[in-house]
């Protein structure tokens, strides 16, 4: 399963939870560091107080520094009894005076800086916070600088910051959980109209192609619009197919009735000559009906609603048309029509279905032969005109009046009074096939100033 077909709920939760958790993590870290800072600042003030109190009690006795340690100063620290307090006093030149000799010291303060300096260190296996400062002392017998270090173990401080961290994290986690629950529930609520729509679609019968009118959220209104649009197009295409089937059965019924009638006439005839005549008519009618059946099949295969079965390929339109024209030459000679071909020596490449394009060319030539009188001149012509591959069939026959040029593409349309025994599907087939290949069909007067020129223009492939 790819990301795109995960449920909306899951997608929304992932989108919500990821960033939310990251932000919460950031907030937690930030508040951890700032609480650490605040706690240290408060702590440091107390440490500094002790260090100053100690510094004030440094006196010079007999030329030596001595300290009268104020217990009060140390009592300020470690009041809760958890933390231990250490101190250390060093005289001029770094000479240790009193306190804990190995307490970590600040090199800067020992070196003479006044401070105060605060720093974290480790002493006797525990974290300690140290305050350091130095003061000058001047008497008649001695003048110099001494340093005071006061340290307290940081257990209390660490505990406090950890506590703050936990509380903050808990609050944020609860916030995230509530946000997720709201999102989960909200998506469910939001999808209710879609579920209703789904039930409505399932309930629909095959024949009911009315649009869906369910209330849906704005985001899916376009989707429903697209579905309704598809239904409308389906409806049109089904209606046009039904019209075609009903037209086709009517068209087949007529010749079948004629065949029956003529057969009965022939059977009733006593005169062999009259019987022959009836049979001759029968032959003509069946030939026409066969042609009609063939054309109906071709149309069914060319029509877009039939779907494409045959695979398209790269074809040479010139070679294909030359072959089709050649195949029609015997029929043309029989009718006394001069059928010829004009085309370039190099191929005119198109992408299409050979069977369908042969059918297209054949229908055009067939039409020309059918409607032109003996002695007419019919030319099948192929040329490349820029990006278009052009196939023309040009004749000097009776032509088609401007008023009828549009109507001749309709299925089963036949020009009133035309002598030929066509079934009215030829040009409809030509147009379906041309359109199926992304092309167009146009009718104009023949190049000889009379007759008809049918031009099929297909997208050509460049070399």
């Amino acid at each position, binding site marked *: 399963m790819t990301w795109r077909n995960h449920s909306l709920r899951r997608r929304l939760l992932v989108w919500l939870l990821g960033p939310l958790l990251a932000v919460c993590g950031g907030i937690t870290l930030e508040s951890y560091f700032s609480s650490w800072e605040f706690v240290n600042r408060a702590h440091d003030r107390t440490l500094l107080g002790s260090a100053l109190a100690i510094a004030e009690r440094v006196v010079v006795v007999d030329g030596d520094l001595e300290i009268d340690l104020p217990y009060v100063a140390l009592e300020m620290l470690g009041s809760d009894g958890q933390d231990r307090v250490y101190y250390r006093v060093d005289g001029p030149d770094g000479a240790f005076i009193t306190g804990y000799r190995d307490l970590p010291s600040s090199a800067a303060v020992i070196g003479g800086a006044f401070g105060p300096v605060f720093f974290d260190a480790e002493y006797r296996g525990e974290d300690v916070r140290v305050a350091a400062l130095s003061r000058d002392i001047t008497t008649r017998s001695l003048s110099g600088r001494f340093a005071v270090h006061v340290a307290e173990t940081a257990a209390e401080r660490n505990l406090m910051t950890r506590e703050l961290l936990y509380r903050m994290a808990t609050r944020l986690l609860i916030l995230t959980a509530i946000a997720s629950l709201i999102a989960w529930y909200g998506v469910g609520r939001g999808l209710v109209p879609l579920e209703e729509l789904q039930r409505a679609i399932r309930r629909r019968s095959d024949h009911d192609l009315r649009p869906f009118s369910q209330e849906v959220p704005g985001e899916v209104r376009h989707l429903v619009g697209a579905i309704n649009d598809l239904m409308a197009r389906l409806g049109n295409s089904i209606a046009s197919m039904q019209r075609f089937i009903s037209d086709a059965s009517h068209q087949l019924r007529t010749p079948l009735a004629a065949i029956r009638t003529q057969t009965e006439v022939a059977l009733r005839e006593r005169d062999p000559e009259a019987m022959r005549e009836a049979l001759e008519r029968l032959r003509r009618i*069946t*030939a026409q009906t*066969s042609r009609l*059946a*063939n054309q109906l*099949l071709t149309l069914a*295969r060319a029509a877009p609603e039939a779907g494409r*079965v*045959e695979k398209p390929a790269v074809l040479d339109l010139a070679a294909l048309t*030359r072959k089709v*024209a*050649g*195949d029609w*030459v*015997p029929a043309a*000679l029989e009718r006394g029509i*001069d*059928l*010829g*071909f*004009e*085309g370039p020596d190099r191929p005119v490449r198109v992408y299409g279905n*050979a*069977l369908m394009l042969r059918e297209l060319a054949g229908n055009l030539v067939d039409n020309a032969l059918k409607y032109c009188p003996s002695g007419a001149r019919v*030319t099948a012509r192929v040329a490349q005109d820029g990006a278009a591959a052009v196939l023309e069939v040009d004749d000097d026959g009776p032509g088609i009046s401007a008023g009828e040029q549009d109507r001749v593409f309709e299925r089963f349309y036949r020009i009133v009074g035309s002598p030929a025994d066509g079934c009215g599907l030829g040009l409809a087939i030509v147009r379906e096939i041309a359109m199926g290949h992304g092309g167009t069909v146009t009718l104009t007067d023949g190049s000889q100033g009379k007759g008809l020129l049918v031009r099929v223009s297909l997208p050509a492939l460049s070399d």
Partner: protein
Amino acid sequence: MRILLVEDNRDLAHGMARTLTDAGHAVDATADGIEADDILAIQEYDLVILDLTLPGMDGLEVLANLRRRKVTTPVLVLTARAGVEDRVAGLDTGADDYMTKPFDLAELAAGVRALARRSYAAKGPEIAHGPLSFDSAGRTVTLNGRRLDMPRREMGLLEILLLNAGRVVSKEQIAARLFSFEQEASLSAVELYVHRLRRKLEPAGISIRTIRGLGYLLEEP
């Protein structure tokens, strides 16, 4: 000519058999694919007319079996299936020609004639065309019973036209047949040979028509 007709529609088979018999052929008919396969395994024919949708065994299978036995008898395939024309024509099924139902008897007769001519030419006997007779093995041409002297190229031209009588043959096809690869296959040379051949045949009423942009066609007698 001896023809095996394999077609399961009785009315159609009857009409076709009748026409072929009238044209002077000996026709055996069967309506079953398996039977056709059995017959073809023991009996040799000059032509097989084969429907594709058959009871017992599919027509294409009968055809495949025939070709597997290395039998080169020409086969004319009949089909009513839409789209099958392409498969029969495009794929190497071993069929020599095909015809889509419904067809008229004149079409059938022309198809049979064309296949017969091709099969005869392969075996070497004479091709007759009206008053003209062409012996493809002995390379002699007789017109109205009199031997006609003819250079080799003209005879080659006549042969290709005879084998395709009633159909258009392009200049390129003729050139490819008349000239070997090393020679310059010029289309104007083809025109010249056609012109010469015409002069010899026209007095006897045999006409070679020029078809605009397409080539030549020897009219059926």
